[in-house]
């Protein structure tokens, strides 16, 4: 089976290319016999140059005539590939962190989405805040991070659950020693009734944000509701001893899970690459799992995208996150989420399996999208 892969690059997450590709390779390497895979790969850089992405996709689908296309791109760029995807009718797996969600949830029949569910998890996180606070929260993000819909998802669910945004703080600074949160501090001092912060940051600015916020005199009264990248290890590396504030949110994956599929991933990946796995290797590995399932269950029609989707929607698939369920109405793979909580001054993240959150997912995928929007075209975290 010939697999075309459009793979990403990132300056801020330089491991993304090797992690993602090695994740796929490590997974499919285990495949024996008739289901061998041949990989054809093309770089699409940060995924933001539409013409380049189109040309590479066209080459893989039309010239190399791959059987399946795996494209690590975001939704805005995917829109341009629609004619190509439609004309080929082959299975197409769109992979990304899931920081955006589609304006139209009705998918093309031959397209699937494998993500880290970031926007969805932000949406679920947004519902936590009003339940525990007085309904007021300040929104904090960066100029880069707020160019994706995960920010909107968190705010929208917060507001829909009775919350009110009292301040919007967008950090537009370089992520270095000059990084500051002065304007946010000024607001928090002036408005004594806001103690909740809805936060969407990538891991590096998140670590700086936590660090500066910890120095805020009223930090002990703050409660942060954060995006998944803010719960990554690098974001929390200054955690030993704990922060003065409390942090709540969701992760898409518990790397420490003792589940057999997770341990198998971690061991095989380490053996294959001599590196520890991360979220991008997880996405690569899970892509490999989906490809294996196509090879196993769609032997006669693996080039027929609509049939592959139909088959996978009725197939039990498991990976490091647990069940990988293909939602037949959106063609998104959904997985159990991990509820995370770090009490103030504890330095310890408590994690519990929150399950598939199916009802929340259904509600999220039915939420009407209103008004005009704009945002970055590159794939989230590729910058």
């Amino acid at each position: 089976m010939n697999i075309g892969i459009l793979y990403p690059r990132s300056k801020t997450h330089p491991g993304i290319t090797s992690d993602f590709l090695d994740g796929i390779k490590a997974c499919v390497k285990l495949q024996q016999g008739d289901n061998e895979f041949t990989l054809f790969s093309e770089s699409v850089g940060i995924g933001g140059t539409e013409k380049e992405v189109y040309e590479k996709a066209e080459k893989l689908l039309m010239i190399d005539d791959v059987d399946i296309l795996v494209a690590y791109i975001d939704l805005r760029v995917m829109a341009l590939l629609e004619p190509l995807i439609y004309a080929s009718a082959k299975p197409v797996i769109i992979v990304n962190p899931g920081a955006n969600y589609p304006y139209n949830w009705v998918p093309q029949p031959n397209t699937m989405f494998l993500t880290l569910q970031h926007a969805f998890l932000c949406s679920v996180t947004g519902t936590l805040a009003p339940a525990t606070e007085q309904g007021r929260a300040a929104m904090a993000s960066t100029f880069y991070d707020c160019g994706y819909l995960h920010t909107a998802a968190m705010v929208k669910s917060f507001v829909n659950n009775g919350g009110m945004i009292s301040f919007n703080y967008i950090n537009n600074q370089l992520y270095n020693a000059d990084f500051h949160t002065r304007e946010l501090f000024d607001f928090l001092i002036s408005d004594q009734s806001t103690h909740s912060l809805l936060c969407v940051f990538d891991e590096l600015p998140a670590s700086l944000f936590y660090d500066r916020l910890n120095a805020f005199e009223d930090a002990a009264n703050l409660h942060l509701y954060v995006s998944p990248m803010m719960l990554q290890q690098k974001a929390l590396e200054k955690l030993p001893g704990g922060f003065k504030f409390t942090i709540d949110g969701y992760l898409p994956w518990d790397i420490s899970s003792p589940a057999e599929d997770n341990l198998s991933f971690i061991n095989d990946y380490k053996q294959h690459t001599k590196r520890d796995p991360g979220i991008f290797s997880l996405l690569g590995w899970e892509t490999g799992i989906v490809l294996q399932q196509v090879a196993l269950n769609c032997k006669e029609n693996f080039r027929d995208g609509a049939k592959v989707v139909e088959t996978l929607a009725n197939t039990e698939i498991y990976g490091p996150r647990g069940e990988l369920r293909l939602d037949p109405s959106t063609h998104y793979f959904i997985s159990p989420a991990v509820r995370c909580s770090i009490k103030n001054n504890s330095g310890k993240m408590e994690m519990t399996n929150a399950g598939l959150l199916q009802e929340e997912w259904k509600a999220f995928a039915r939420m009407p999208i209103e008004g005009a929007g704009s945002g970055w075209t590159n794939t989230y975290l590729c910058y």
Partner: protein
Amino acid sequence: MEAVKVILLCGSRFAIPALREMYFFQQLAAVVIPRHCKEMIEETREALTGSGIPVLLVGKDDLADQLNDAIKKYSVNIGLIATFSYLIPSSVYSLPAKGFFNVHPGPLPEYRGPDPIFRQMKNGESLAGVTIHKLTEEMDTGSIVMKEMIRIEKEDTYGLLSAKLAQTAAGMIRSLLKLAGFGMAIPSRPQDESKAVYHKRQGAKDISIDWNAMDADSVISLINACNPWNKGAVTKINNKIIRLVEAVKLTHADTGDAAAGTITGFAENGMVVSMIRGEAIRVNIVYTDEGFFPAGRLGGFGLRVGNQFEIIGE
């Protein structure tokens, strides 16, 4: 990026969002509208005020000549059709270098024909679609470039759904023109003829309620499909034509053994009507020659519990 110069052929508001967007992005070279589409002519002129973009009015007889001239005069390199009542001769649609495409407000090949929005709604589909295909001599038969489906919501009327599909079409056209601007060959896939269905324009029977055959969902689908363009689905009672504009299905209604189409009560400004299979609907708004009314006011027109709607033509 190559300059894209579009000639847009259109006859209804379905084209307006795309027209505005193409105007904004300076992609619109000319607009062509049939002379009989008075409202569209007015709305287009309004939208393009001060733009200098020509709005050409055509009839069946001078269509080919006018298009031929315009394509050359305005250096058009791509043609788009969005609900246009005339067929385009191949001598014309082969002229633009980047091709000529039809934006059809329905999924192809399943919904060929002049008014797929009505047909999709009347058929109670859960999804409605827009298809962009390459132009051929026969209507709605060309290779498909793009197809996008959206949900039909319970509260969608023909007007609401048309507006949503128009926005969907504008997004699809944006991608198409971007692709054309990149100088790419635009891929397409032939239609599966085994799934092709041609739906002719709806006649009097299509917009009338058949109380003996249609269940509650079908009647509500028809009512929504006829709102607002037909002022509702048509029925008759006491020799008077009435159009049902809005209704909801009742989940817990006891209509006894009343025959389908019988008024079983007046409530909440509405009128409860029994349906086949023991179902019931509450009609909220009606239209008569005297105007639009809450259905509950039909009592003032002499209608009573026990009166029965009739099937037109019987």
